[in-house]
């Protein structure tokens, strides 16, 4: 209120604004500044991090001059290249596997009368979201160690250990948007296809799948993001030499930070932001 009174503006306009506020049923004093503070809290740290990755100086807090040299360093760094490649390989494999599993599971758990075991299947699929990450991490580590000792299986070959561990928590992330899309779809179109003598496979291939594609894309993108961002589980499951990008960043943070650390982090942030923006705005457009 005070800030409105302080400004030497046209009294009619000031009054009308206050009047409007008084007439607004939903208005609560002080909520707007808190909301803006919340945005500040969420974004200020990331923004500072990103800005200082363009700092010419070695310092990550004292600004001297704009420079792209840290990004050049990062791109030229062979360790980072290898880590990025590993992250991409694991994320791609885990995303493809998880999205296929999740799509099939969504087809079996939507648009049907409840059947025995459906609730249980739903719980199992979403279980990875409920178990604390550190518990999953140590349990998976113990599990693979046991497999190595008892069965002599070394799953480190082709990074199968990381891919499997990632698939487990990617499945629920891919499942939820696919399921949401599917349960909003009408059965009538498939029934029409069946009336026109389409085989079940044809009606799936030419009717269900095209309609489901946006959901599958959203699910796959979310799975990809959570896989590429994962640190806790990867760190414990990864064997020696299996350094993903987050594990590399962790090492940098522990060893001593330079703007190069900021630069890698900024690249990771930008990738996440692009993917999430796509998922979000595609989803919004679909809903209208």
């Amino acid at each position, binding site marked *: 209120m005070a800030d409105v009174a302080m400004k030497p503006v046209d009294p009619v306009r000031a009054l009308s604004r206050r009047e409007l506020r008084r007439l607004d049923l*939903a*208005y*609560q004093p*002080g909520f707007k500044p*808190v*909301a803006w503070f*919340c*945005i500040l*809290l*969420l*974004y*200020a*740290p*990331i923004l500072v*991090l990103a800005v*200082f990755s363009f700092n010419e100086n070695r310092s990550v*807090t004292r600004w001297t001059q704009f420079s792209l040299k840290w990004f050049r360093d990062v791109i030229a760094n062979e360790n980072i290249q290898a880590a990025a490649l590993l992250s991409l390989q694991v994320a791609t494999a885990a995303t493809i*596997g998880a999205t296929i599993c999740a799509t*099939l*599971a969504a*087809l*079996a758990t939507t648009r049907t009368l409840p*059947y025995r075991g459906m609730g249980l299947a739903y719980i*199992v*699929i979403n*279980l*990875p979201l*409920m*178990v*604390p*990450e*550190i*518990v*999953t991490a*140590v*349990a*998976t580590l*113990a*599990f693979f*160690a*046991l497999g190595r*000792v008892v069965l002599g299986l070394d799953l480190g070959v082709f990074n199968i250990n990381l891919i*499997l561990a990632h*698939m*487990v928590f990617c*499945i629920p992330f891919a499942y939820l948007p696919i399921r949401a899309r599917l349960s909003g779809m009408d059965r009538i179109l498939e029934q029409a296809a069946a009336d026109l003598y389409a085989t079940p496979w044809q009606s799936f291939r030419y009717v269900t799948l095209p309609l489901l594609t946006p959901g599958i894309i959203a699910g796959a993108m979310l799975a990809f993001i959570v896989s590429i*961002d994962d*640190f806790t589980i990867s760190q*414990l499951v990864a064997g020696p030499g299996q350094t993903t990008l987050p594990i590399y*960043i*962790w090492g940098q*943070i522990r060893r001593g*930070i330079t703007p190069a650390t900021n630069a890698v*982090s900024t690249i*990771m942030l930008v990738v*996440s932001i692009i*993917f*999430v*923006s796509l998922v979000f705005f595609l989803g*919004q457009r679909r809903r209208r």
Partner: protein
Amino acid sequence: MAVAAAPATELARVKAVVGRQTALRRLALLAPALFIVFLFGVCPLFIILIYSFLESGAYGGVDWVFSTDAYVSFLFTRDMFDPSVMSFNSSNLEIFWRSFLLALFATAASLLIGFPTAYFMATRPRSTRTLWLFLITLPFWTNLLVRTFAMMLLIRDEGFINDGLIWFGVIDRPIVMLYTDFAVALGLLYSFLPFMILPLYASLEKIDFRLVEAGFDLYANRAKVLRRIIIPLAKPGIIAGSILVFIPALGAYITPTLLGGGRDLMIGNLIALQFGGSRNWPFGSALALILMSVVLVFLMIYARVSSERNVQHG
């Protein structure tokens, strides 16, 4: 079975065959997802259940000898010279208590900031609401490690905040924030705030403002409307959000490791330590299972609350 006499039994037989086919198809569709999650997500939990009842191996791993040592050593320390003498040791309980308090603080602080934010979002016009929702969702999907690192840069001794305050002449030497409980609490708040806002927003958005109008008609002021109408209607969201913040905060690993330094542990660090440097897998497994069971209790409360909500609106 094969008696195909009356058409009615014939119909029943066809129905049974179709039913069996549907069941088989469902099973085939569910099989890959259930197989992966069960084998690599659920089985490992059983493995650590078994491990928690074994003896610790000399070079990491386990010795296959039954023992309840892992659980006993949660509360007691064996005497170094006479292993039959045990003395009560509260250090593990203290770490659990610390984690509990820090998680509770993060939950309370995120509720205090999250509620007004979610309410403000829910009362915006539709177009602005989407933008706000996007701004809150975005940090939810960005790398937690990177975000924690960003917070670290901000609150270091020579960090952005201290440098700024010194530059403005507010203080002449940096305030130590990093590697304190404050840093961990702030980091937890910062990490999990979106988990509070999103369910709060979901329940606040559904509020029928005719009820608020009725409140004003009955001479309530804004504070009373908030306390007697809006907060009670948002209760499912408040409970859901609190649990969704509390659970990951309780088991946090990245935040206390980076912002709390190595000295003051939370449960997450303590568990990870047992599988790393100090190598006591059975003890680490027992700790993980204790954490898991605490989380399970909160999840059950959450499930009950969300099923109540569905009944209300369904």
